[in-house]
């Protein structure tokens, strides 16, 4: 590459190869890198996706890292300009991406340990990357427990996949919805109500959680109650983002830049920051 012409603001093209609706508003998009290389991301990182003429927005990478495969997945809720335009694309269309950016879940630390994955709402999307990475190296980890909370059954995403995980026996799955309808037979209540249901070995368990802002405080309190230390808790935080490079200032949590210092943080590192959680 001519480094003289390099600018970190320039996206590179990727091609949409598959589009799978997951719920009324959420769709999974599979892209292939036009440069013929794997994305080389770590679980928890994100890409900045551009649809030219519309804008650019950050999305977590939902697929696990792949060594030779040049595809990667994101799953997106239709909510504004970029996300709507993305939903209007059909396979074959090209978009631009920058990244992968940001911090990741420290998978090496999790080796030999139990992992509790707590996914609220769309939080399952980034956690999927971690989950499937660990499943690929299943023997290296202890117990894997997945807790999924959704507002109502209609909003559940990756329903079949999560059911298969439960059946496989590799992952212990606990699921709940806040507002059940007539079809729902499972647990009812916010995600925190699942924690007392699980027997955990607090000294040997790491927690990875992603969910809406209000979820963190309560889930962390439950974990602490169980005797899990702050150093064992990892969260991924969402903020407004523009540059993804630690320059534009939008994603600040006190003095941290979520785009480069995060989005994945160890709870000890943010506990003292008033704006974090």
């Amino acid at each position, binding site marked *: 590459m001519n480094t003289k012409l390099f*600018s*970190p603001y320039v*996206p590179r093209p990727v091609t949409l190869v598959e589009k799978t609706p997951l719920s009324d508003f959420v769709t999974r998009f599979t892209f292939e890198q036009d440069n013929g290389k794997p994305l080389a991301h770590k679980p928890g990182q994100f890409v900045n996706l551009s649809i*030219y*003429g519309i804008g650019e927005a950050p999305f977590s990478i939902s697929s696990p890292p792949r060594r030779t495969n040049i595809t990667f997945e994101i799953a997106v809720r239709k909510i504004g300009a970029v996300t709507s335009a993305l939903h209007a694309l059909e396979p074959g269309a090209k978009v631009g991406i920058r990244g992968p950016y940001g911090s990741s879940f420290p998978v090496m630390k999790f080796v030999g340990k139990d992992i509790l994955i707590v996914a609220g709402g769309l939080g399952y999307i980034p956690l999927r990357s971690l989950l499937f990475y660990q499943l690929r190296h299943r023997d290296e980890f202890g117990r894997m427990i997945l807790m999924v909370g959704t507002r109502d059954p209609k909003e559940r995403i990756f329903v079949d996949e999560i059911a298969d995980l439960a059946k496989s026996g590799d992952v212990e799955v606990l699921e709940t919805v806040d507002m059940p309808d007539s079809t729902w037979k499972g647990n009812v209540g916010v995600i925190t109500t699942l924690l007392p249901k699980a027997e955990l070995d607090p000294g040997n368990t790491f927690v990875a959680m992603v969910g809406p802002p209000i979820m963190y405080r309560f889930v962390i309190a439950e974990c602490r109650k169980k005797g899990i230390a702050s150093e064992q808790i990892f969260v991924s935080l969402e903020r407004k983002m523009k540059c993804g*490079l*630690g*320059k534009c*200032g939008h994603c600040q949590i006190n003095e941290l830049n979520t785009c480069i210092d995060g989005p994945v943080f160890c709870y000890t590192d943010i506990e003292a920051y008033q*704006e974090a959680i």
Partner: protein
Amino acid sequence: MTTYTVYKEQLPGLFEKWSKLYALHVPARLREGFYDLVPWKKDLEIAWDYDVAYNSAKRFVMPPHEALITYDRRTCEAKPVFDAPKQILFGVHPYDVKALNQLDQIMEAGSPDQNYIRRREATVVMVFEPLTVSSSAFWASVGASSVAHGFDLYWTKIGPAAFTVEVGSVRGEELLGMNGPLLASTAGDKEGARRAKARVLAKARKNALRYNWEETPRLLAKCWDSPLWRRYSQMCLACGSCNLVCPTCYCFDIREESDDQLETGVRSREWDGCMLEGFAKVAGNHNFRPKAQDRYRHRYFRKGKYIYDKIGELGCVGCGRCVRACTAGIANPLKVFNELWEETAHEY
């Protein structure tokens, strides 16, 4: 570093030469009481005694609107846009250069911002030791009265028609020597420069923090819950003026527009500010700093703590621009920091 003595009558000749190679900007009076750096032209009267340039120097290295990439919607290709006009900023005050040096650190960290870096490299900075001090400035009390680097030449007026010029770069020395050999400053001239600095410092110290500026981060750490934030922010118009006029504020938004054929387009950055209501608002209308007091406090923490924690300097160089720009009269860091100091004085 070498210091030369230059006389006023040499300036027109130098300006003439420089302006052929660079866009040359010099301080001039806009109207009674208002000064700014403006494009030099022959016979323009230089405002040697200007107190503060209405607009800070950041616009020369990070313009309010700046193209970052061009894109092609048909092929989905994007290319960087670099625009770095060769320019000389003559007569910038030290505190503004200190602010530029801060921007350098932020923009060079991590993934270097090539657009910024190229502009900065194409910009020759000639500092001028101030002769007067704006009534709202307090740079002498926040460690911003001198700069040791980040400039090409440092000019000090030592008499009605004489300057000492300290060399900060080879490029600066070459520019200064364009019209022939230079006269090294005598010890007496250097002493004159020292005295000129002392004179302006005496004036600048009139408006000061009540404590050593290095205490600011520790002071703020105690003041997260101070009632001051709410009290003042009730008047806040969320207009962002305090951010935009600030020489150290660099936050930006990124927006784009396609051409009229809807085929290609330009994505650019635009000055933004953390005081604007929508700055931390995301899709679906969740706002991570919903209240005026959250945003108001954030700005002071940026100035007094966050930047310090990153680079060991205050994010405020005391230029006083925000003090004047805030129509609500609440954006004064000196006043706020001093009041917080009073508020917490009993704890020291």
